Structures are given as C-alpha cells and as structure tokens.
C-alpha cells in the first residue's frame, strides 16, 4: 500500500506539470472468451485520476484516430460508493480492474450500465460483447482526463474465434420423414379429390388437381409444416445446446415470455409504433392522393414518380440512408442547424424510427387510395358543388364514407405489415439504445426482440413461444377490428 502511495505521489509530481492523461502502456486482446466476444486488457502507466474516461474504439482497420472507428463502450474512473458491484457472470459482460495490488476486482455499474472503476486503478480487463465473429477487428482505448487531455493507445487486432454455435449434428431423418409424409398425404388428398370429381362426372377439370399440386405441395411443406413445427417448438426446451433432442416442457416458455422484464413495455411500444404509423400512412396518403386527384394538375406524372421513390428504393437502403442522416455528424444536424444525437436518446430514437417508417410507407397507401378515389363518381361532387357544399363537408360526408370500404382492409393490412416491420428497427437502432442483457431495448418491437431471443441468445423454444404470442395478438386484433368496422358499417 505504501509503495503504491509513493508511486502515486511520484507520478503525480511527474505528470502534473505536463498534465497529460494516463498513458496506456499495455494492451492485449483475447479472441477466445466467447461467442462474438473479445477480452481486452489494458494497463496504464500511472494510477488513474478521478473523472478519467476510457473509451474503447472498434474498427475493421488499424486505428490511428477515432474518426474511422466506432465507439464500443466506456469505462469511467470515479466514486464507486452507493452503486452496485455485480459479481463475475452476473452482468451482461464481465469487467474487472486492477487497483494496483495485483488482484482483479469486478467493476461497479452505473445506473445506465457503464462500468465504473475505483480511483487509482492501473489496469482494466473487460469482455467486449456483440463483435462480429471470425473476422479481424482492431481495438484501441482512448483515455481522457477531466481537463480534456486525451491519449489514444496503439491499436491491437484480434478476432472472436469462438464459432457461431456449437457444432451439433442434427438428425436429418425426422425432418425428411415429416416432410415426406406431409407431401405424401397432400398427394393422396389431391388424388382422392380428383377421384371424387371423376365419380361425379366432371370432365372439364381433368387437369385441375394436377395444376395446383406443385403449389399446394410447396405451400404445405414450406409454410404449413414450419408453422406447426414452430407451435410445437414453443412447448419444448429447444435452444442452441438442445437441438434435435429437445423435449416437451409444457408452458414454461410462455411463462418466460410473460415474465420478461420488458414484456409490457415492448408490447406497448409495438402498438404505438403500429397505430401511429398506420394513421400517418393513411392520413398523408389520403392527403397526397387527393392533391394528385385532379385532371388539370400540371406535372402530375412527375409528382407521382417522385412520390413513388420511397417504395421503389429497396427498403434496407433507405433505412440505412436515414440512419446516416440522423448520425450526430450527419446531414440532418447540418440541415436544421442543430446539434442532436437522436439515436442515442430513448425517446428521440423512438420518434426517429417511426418517422423513417412513415417515410417508407406513404407511397403504397397513396397509390392504393388514389385508385379508390378515381373510382368515386364525379357527378356526385358536381352535384354537391352546385348545392354549395363546402370543401370540408364534401370530404367529410362524400369522400370519407365512400372510401371506407377501401380504407378498412388497407388499414388492417398496413397494421399487420407495420407490426412485423423488421428492417427499419433492426437497421436503424437494432433495438437500442439501452440494450440490456435481459429484456428488450428502448426501440425494440416484438419481432425484432424475437429475432434477438432466437439468434442472439439461441433460445429457440422461447422465441417460438414469442412468435405464437405475437400471432395470437394479431389474430385477436384483426378479428376485433373487422367486427368493429363491420358493426359501424351496419349502423350507417
């Protein structure tokens, strides 16, 4: 202890006049700690002062400055009293620090999960998660003192060698047997139907069953079979280590689903996401369709073509482009003259993903409503105009009721699509910010979270249970919606 004290004093004497940050003298990486993980150890030349911030930067090329890299995470040096100190294995990622006495202690955790090490630490050993596996990545640590001095370590390369999943040889024969028997029974069914037609003396449709056979076979083998298999999976303990030998465990998976910490939050946000999007799609689509619905509008084709672009461009490209616009250095801040980092803020990110999806979905609704508008009788409007009905009343009492038969199925279709819109959220935020170990992130909707459960955690059974829950929600919603809209239709 005394020795450390002396070293501290000495190094302070040595460092203070120059005032530079603790230099990182050693950095080591270990790609063999887990799936998509890399262990990173760095040591500093002097005990760290309070307020120092370590930033871990990642890139696919050697890091000379942080401009070409992405920030992975931060470790803060500061006061650790009153905040939690999870044990090894208790947190999403493990992080230890060396206080100078040669022993590794687990770090403390901030409210937002940032690792906090005690003042005076001379080494940190963290497991970095979520890195791509199998490719060479470069890591560097940047330390910044409270007075703004910063130091970037040399970069070190590593690759997460742990493979995607354990190599499990799955018995193929049960699947082949299932597929074969389904195909055979469908064929027999078609044959019996054909025979019954023959018995009844229908001769004009001799080839009908033959013609539909390929499509029906494909549909049953590649859609109905997986759906049924998925329902069965939701009652089993299938996961990465129990594949092929999964066993029935009752409704445990559904209990896991309901008791997930963010279940109601993610369901609530999915509902908000769907309803706001569909309302905006229909609202703006209707507005634009009505603006375009005029015979003597100049440049109509040009407008139509330009407005169709969000539909024509592949959606994954548009979403990534929007993500670039919203980056702190992106053009949106230049354009508005602001300085925001919307994607890092929970509510900001929620608004942003909804805005992007609104941008994507308007053209489809606009074109569909346009078609329906053109089918409305023109003389109805002429009569109303002669009678001195103003524009708003014409819209409210003529256009809307007549469009209802088109808007009800369109909105339902839009709702189901938006509910299952994976690309926007996955590519914009990947469910973040605030991605925790156990539960959905701030912008996760149900389907992106199911993807995480299945392919990040490898819990296939639980993911199948989520899927069934989602499907039931959709069916219940669609059914109620159809009932409700039919009921009002009968009244008016």
């Amino acid at each position, binding site marked *: 202890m005394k020795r450390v004290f002396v070293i501290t004093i000495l190094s302070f004497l040595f460092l203070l006049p120059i005032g530079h940050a603790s230099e990182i003298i050693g950095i080591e990486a270990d790609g063999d700690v887990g799936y998509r993980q890399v262990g990173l150890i760095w040591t500093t030349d002097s005990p760290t002062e309070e307020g120092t911030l370590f930033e871990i930067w990642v890139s696919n090329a050697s890091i000379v400055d942080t401009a070409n890299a992405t920030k992975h995470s931060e470790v803060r040096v500061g006061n650790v009293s009153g905040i939690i100190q999870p044990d090894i294995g208790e947190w999403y990622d493990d992080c230890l620090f060396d206080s100078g006495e040669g022993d590794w202690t687990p770090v403390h955790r901030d409210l937002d999960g940032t690792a906090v090490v005690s003042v005076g630490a001379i080494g940190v050993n963290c497991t970095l998660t979520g890195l791509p596996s199998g490719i060479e990545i470069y890591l560097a640590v940047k330390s910044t003192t409270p007075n703004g001095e910063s130091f970037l370590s040399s970069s070190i390369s590593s690759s997460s060698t742990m493979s995607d999943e354990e190599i499990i040889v799955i018995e193929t024969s049960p699947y082949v047997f299932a597929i074969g028997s389904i195909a055979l029974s469908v064929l027999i069914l078609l044959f019996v139907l054909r025979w019954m037609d023959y018995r009844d003396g229908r001769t004009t449709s001799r080839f009908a069953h033959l013609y539909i056979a390929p499509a029906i076979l494909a549909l049953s083998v590649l859609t109905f079979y997986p759906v049924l298999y998925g329902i069965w999976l939701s009652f089993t303990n299938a996961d990465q280590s129990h594949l092929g030998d999964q066993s029935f465990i009752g409704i445990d998976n559904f209990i896991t689903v309901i008791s997930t910490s963010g279940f109601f939050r993610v369901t609530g946000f999915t509902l908000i996401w769907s309803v706001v999007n569909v309302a905006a799609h229909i609202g703006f689509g209707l507005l*634009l369709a009505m603006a375009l619905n005029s015979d003597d509008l100049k440049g109509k084709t040009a407008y139509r073509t*330009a407005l169709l672009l969000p539909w024509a461009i592949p959606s994954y490209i548009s979403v990534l482009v929007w993500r670039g616009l919203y980056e702190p250095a992106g053009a949106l801040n230049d354009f508005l*003259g602001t300085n925001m980092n919307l994607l890092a803020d929970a509510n900001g990110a929620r608004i942003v993903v909804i805005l992007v999806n609104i941008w994507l979905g308007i053209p489809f609704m606009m074109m569909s409503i346009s078609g329906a508008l053109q089918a409305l009788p023109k003389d109805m409007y002429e009569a109303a105009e002669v009678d001195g009905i103003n524009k708003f009343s014409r819209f409210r009492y003529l256009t809307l009721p007549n469009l209802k038969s088109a808007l009800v199925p369109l909105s339902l279709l839009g709702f189901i699509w938006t509910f299952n819109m994976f690309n926007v959220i996955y590519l914009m935020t990947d469910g973040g910010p605030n991605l925790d170990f156990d539960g959905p992130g701030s912008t996760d909707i149900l389907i992106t979270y199911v993807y995480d459960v299945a392919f990040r955690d490898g819990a296939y059974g639980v993911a199948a249970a989520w899927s069934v829950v989602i499907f039931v929600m959709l069916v219940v919603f669609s059914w109620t919606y159809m009932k409700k809209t039919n009921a009002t239709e009968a009244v008016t």
Partner: protein
Amino acid sequence: MISAKSVASEPPDDLASKWYVPAEVDSLRNLYPIVVAINFVSLCIFVLRGDSDSIFSSSMQMIVSVVILMLLSKLDQGQRFIRDGVISISGLALLLSVLQFLSGPQILIDFWMMLWTSLPAVLVIYSVSKPIVTLWASGNQTVRSAELGLSRNRSVSRFHGMVFRHVALLHAVAFVLLPILWIVDVALSPGNSLGGEFFETVTFEHFSHILSSESFWIWTRNSVIVSIGTTILGLALAIPAGYAFSRFKFRGRDYAMFSFLLVQMFPGVIILVPYFLVMKALGLLNTSLGLILAYSVTALPLCVWMLKGFFDTVPKELEEAALVDGCNQNQVFWRIILPLSLPAVAVTALFSFLAAWNEFLLALTFNTSEEMYTLPVGLASLISSTGQAWGDFAAASLLVSLPVVILFIVFQRFLIEGLSAGGVKG
C-alpha cells in the same frame, strides 16, 4: 312581426350578399392554421438549437399568426375596422420574420421558415387590400356586385386550390428527395464524412473502390442467382395454380384458395425460427437453394392471386373455340393462354424478382457466412459495429437501387394493378 309586404319587398336575390364571402378571405382562413402549425415547427427547431433569441421572436411570430387567424375568422361585411387591423398586423408579421431571418444563421431551413412566415403575411396584405375585398368588408356592396363576386369565386377558389395542391406536393417531394440527394452527395464526396456542404468536391473514388472490390461482386452474384432462381421456381409453381383457380371448378377449390389467403396473413416471424431449424437440419443454410425455396414460397400466394386476376381477363371463348377445334386442355394452356398472358407473366416475374432482390430478414438469418451474403446483407454489413464505410455504402447502394428503381417506375402501373388485384381485392 314580419309583414307580408316586407317579405315581398325583400328580393330573394339578396341571399347572394348574405352568402358571399370573397374566395381570397376563405382561402386565407384555410391557410392560416397551416401557417400556425409551421410556426410551431420552427419554434421546435429553435428550441432544439437552444437559441433563446430566436425562441422568443419565433413565439412572438406564432402569437401574431394566431391573432391574424382569429381576425380573419371575425372579418365580415361591414367590418372595415377588422380589415385594417388584419393588414397592419400582417405588416408586423412580415417585419418580424425578415428581422428573424437576418439575425439567424440563414441556412436553407431558415429561408424556408422565413418564407412560411413572410409570404402568408404578404398574401394577407395583398388580398385583403384588394378593392373587391375592401368593398365587401366596408359593407357597401350591392346585390349585383355580390352576385358577380359569387360567380367569380368559383374560378378564383379553383385557382387557389391548385396552388395549395402544388405547395403540398412540393413539400412532399422535398421530403422524399432529401435523403436521396444526400446519399448521392455522400457517394460523390471523398472520405466517409456524413455532413458538410453539398457537392463541395466531386470524386468517383467510392464507385471505383466498390466496383473493384471482390466482395461486392460475390454479393451481386449471390443475389442474381437467388433472384433468378426464385423467379423461375415461383412462376413454375404459380402459373399452373393461377390458371386452375381461374378456369376450373373442382373439389377443394375454395379450401385451396382460402389456404393461399391464410398464408398471406401469417406474419413472417412465426415461420422464421422453425424455418431456420428445418433449413439447418436439411443442410440448406448458407446455400442459394435454401433462400430460393423460401422466397418462392413466400411470394407464392400473391403471385397466384395476381396471375388468377390476369387469367380471368382472358376471354373464355378462345379456349372453347380451341377445344372445339380439337386441342386438348394442355395444348390450350400452353399454346393459347400462356402466349396471350405473357405480359402478365412478365409483371409477376418482375414482382417476384424484386421481392427476392430486396429481401433482408431471411437472407440475414439463413446465410451467415460472408461468402453467401446477398446484396442486402452485404451492404448492411458495410455499416456495422466495426465499419462505417459510408462512402462505399452510398456508392454501392446507388449502383444496386438504380436499376431496380428504373424497373419499378417503368412498370409501376402494372405492378400496382397486379398488387391491388392480388392483395387488396383478395
């Protein structure tokens, strides 16, 4: 206490002067709520900028706009005083907005905000001070002038409606084009900068880099194989089925058609996990065949419905005549129906090609090795946790989407018709 005489003396035509409101005033009343809303948007932008002076002046402007809106709704015949008030307050609004613009940072969006505060004010001053409105507001109009005004209103309000349409459409187009222009700019700028001046320096380094990179061509090859395979297999499955549904009455037809509809309702997610496991068990992960099988079945219901819709429009008499002439059912299908509906088949083919070309989720899940990435997954991997190659991504995405966009725009009418025949009506 109205006597018969007074009723008779009051000409029924006088309704004209009761009803008459100049179209200008009507349009301004419709315009000003929008102006207030846009004022609010500008206020929000200033709040985000944290510029307290602008926040103050912008809220002043908003108050002024609300006052103008209220005065406009009060403006009526014989309200000369209100007419003068509206004009002078609009002058104030104009002054405020110009001052605001001059004191601000004067980037494009400020110019837009200035236009939305000053132009409406100019319009108010111009229209309300027109002789015809002045006459109406001062209450001195005759029955004859009111009648003339009513007939004039029709053409004037039609003109205003057209201007409204153009303004709304131009805003929508700007909103659509903003990200597209930006990505063109990023593709043509050196380095990976995301901001800065538009088209400052133009370079084609990203295009040459992406075109000479091996992985881009691997992804393209995979995407082409998968999309063409999907199109061929999908059509091979869908054409006979669509034809059978369109022409034949057979046992089980309704159930089969219903099952196609039902599949369209299934959210993709419920299939994703079991799909993945089945493909894994059959060794179809990281192969093109796995994606081809999955895509052709996903697109199958819509293709069948689209083709059924097209086949329905081919006259039945043609077939009957051919049957009478001695063709058998197969020959009728191959020699008569198929050549006739070739355009429809082409549109369906385009549809399934585009769907496969743009699909992301299944490709991401099934083909995880970089050798087997399709373009969507490959392009997304350029922007990932380890790489921020925005310039390359922008160049590649322009290269990938340009042909698709052109195809879509050229065939939009048919695609949309087909979709509405298959999706919405079905």
